[in-house]
């Protein structure tokens, strides 16, 4: 990804909109008793489109903004989301995304990882109460919702950041190597 000031502005806007949407919309809807989490999905999208560095930096920024908006302990969400963005970026740098199901699987897996990671950090910070098995159900459902949310999120992010993507040829044009008389 070529990060120009214009693209940087778009990335900042994506981060802000994602955090506001999460806090004011996704966290307040329940499907089968669980709320979806869009933030790991966006971190994965940015990692897949921009690489490990872009994914990690954007994940960190989203986490910082989320913890600030909710007056939570700073650093927890940043740590978890930067890991999701970085791992998605590393995947993109190491493998071809030839199968359209790969982004969905990555979103589901890394959403599970980030939700589990957040729970783990909280447990490490000291939890005296017993943990219900229902938490496992929530983690699983959040992972499924992550994969489903990736279906609209990935093409949308790709469209918004198309100008900065290195490999993507302009739509509707097939490059002609040479012309014969």
């Amino acid at each position, binding site marked *: 990804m070529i990060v120009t000031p214009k693209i940087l502005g778009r990335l900042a806007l994506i981060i802000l909109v994602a955090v506001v949407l999460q806090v*004011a919309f996704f966290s307040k*809807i329940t499907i089968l008793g669980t709320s979806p*989490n869009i933030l790991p999905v966006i971190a994965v999208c940015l990692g897949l489109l921009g690489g490990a560095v872009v994914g990690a930096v954007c994940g960190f920024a989203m986490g910082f903004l989320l913890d*600030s908006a909710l*007056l939570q302990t700073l650093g927890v969400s940043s*740590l978890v989301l930067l890991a999701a963005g970085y791992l998605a970026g590393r995947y993109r740098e190491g493998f071809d995304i030839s199968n359209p199901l790969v982004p969905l699987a990555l979103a589901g897996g890394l959403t599970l990882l980030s939700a589990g990671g957040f729970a783990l950090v909280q447990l490490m910070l000291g939890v005296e*109460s017993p943990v219900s098995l229902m*938490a496992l159900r929530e983690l699983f459902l959040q992972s499924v919702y992550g994969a489903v949310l990736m279906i609209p999120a990935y093409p949308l992010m790709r469209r918004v950041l198309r100008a900065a993507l290195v490999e993507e040829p302009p739509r509707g044009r097939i490059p002609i190597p040479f012309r014969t008389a």
Partner: protein
Amino acid sequence: MYRKQVRRRRAVLVLLVIVSLVLLSSHFSEGSSGPLHGIQRGLATILGPIEEGADRALKPARDLVNWFDETFEARGRNDELEAEVQDLRERVTAADAATKENEQLRQQLDLGPGGGIAGREAVTGRVIGRSPTVWYSTVTIDVGSSSDVAVDDPVITGDGLVGRITDTTAGTAQVTLITDHRSAVSATVVPSGPTGVIKPELGDPDVLLLDFIENDRQVREGETVVTAGWTSGRLASVFPYGIPLGRVSEATAGEQETFDLVHVEPFADVRELDFVEVLTEPGGDGAQNGGSQ
């Protein structure tokens, strides 16, 4: 060239992880008036109106999604509610008699009708943000210190207690829910009387655990649990007496004797919060009530 890229990538990762860990440890170690908390409150103050605007704008879409979920859930709850109505009818009959007796006793003692939450002013707040974790730990509301909301003020809904205020900015406040792992509310079972501490079972917002401190009588299923509202010298519970918490849902004799606890189903559903009421102290300056709950 490739090696340079790899080095840069690793350096960024290490730097970000270090910054996250430093933020985490500094946030814990500094007081609530520290610089990091100050920056956080500044950002929260800026983001508050944006969240509030988004919350209002997205309400129709949210209601639509929740309508589908609630309709699906309502089918399963029909039988359960019919049984509950039957149970409640019997309780209303018993409660009528108790109310008459209570009025007579109050007249004898010259007490007002306000009960335990007299002297508190209710400030209504809209939930504008919610923590996206599986722990159901905090929500953000659109009233803050400018509306006399202070740290440790109890937060209720029409159903019962939902939590307490743990941080404020001028226009927003953070509510730590009774389902958060830091929550512990002193409670008593009525009418049987044993007291204890209500704690959450993490990850399941439909279950609270009442851990007994004093239990010389058997608790039965269906009994109501309310805040105990104790005072001891200068220290006092942040929750006044009598705020409904939940109903005993599972109370086996074995569990009571062995583990000294019973399961409680909370009255308030922390997943469905839209509006809440903060019980503020008139003229309060935000001082903490001894840190006890």
